[in-house]
């Protein structure tokens, strides 16, 4: 169940069917809940700049950060 306001996003039907199956097996209450969870996790890669130790280590080796 999604709280608050919602918006519709169109996706490929085959993809939706795959999502529905996985959501069911993984124990999500609804496919929407599963999709929201996956998107939230993916967004963190772009929004949380402080978590990227791989880049930090590489840049230190190259001498671009101290």
């Amino acid at each position, binding site marked *: 169940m999604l709280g608050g306001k919602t918006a519709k996003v169109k996706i490929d039907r085959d993809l939706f069917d795959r999502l529905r199956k996985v959501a069911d097996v993984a124990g999500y209450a609804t496919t929407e809940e599963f999709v929201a969870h996956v998107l939230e996790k993916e967004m963190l890669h772009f929004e949380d700049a402080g978590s990227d130790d*791989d880049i930090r280590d590489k840049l230190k*080796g190259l001498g671009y*950060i101290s």
Partner: protein
Amino acid sequence: MLGFLKRTFRKQQGEPIVVVSGLPRSGTSMLMKMLDAGGMEIMTDSERTADIDNPKGYFEYERVKDLEKESDKSYVREGRGKVLKVISFLIKDLPDDNDYRVIFMRRNLDEVLASQNKMIQRLGTEDSTAAEEAMKEAYRNDIVRTRLLCKNRPNFELVEINYKNTVEDPVATAHSVNAFVGGHLDETAMREAVDSSLYRNRSKS
């Protein structure tokens, strides 16, 4: 709305700082050389000198390397009206009391990593333990983060410049970059600063 905020900000912050950014080994030093040749003042301490990886120099300002850790960033203001090189990972750490025009260098990620790996081998420094594909994914995220940040912060404007296209057609890049920074640079000198022989790590694709 964001356009209005960006215009208002520009009036309040004085001359913008031109930031040359991108992943290391994406052509940032080449772009710095172009801007230098074109007549822009570079904010550099010349501490990191030219070497085999960057035969024409790095054009860096050492203190920028501490942007993530340092709390006093007031020195960045000295870059107003000048060019400052800041790798994309540190763009988030630039203070908000300046207006920035970001020239974001883009290069094929396989080429970037190949060049970075050679540089780390030569330097003999410690490398990230991340696998090649994980590193590419991390860099893709870094690029998206930088684009999002420049879109969302009213004091940032961004233009993307492709490294390969610049080597192949420096006239077009010189014109685009000059237009982006105000149109007062010597475009002929800018294009002559591009040395295609330094495009050494070329992707086969």
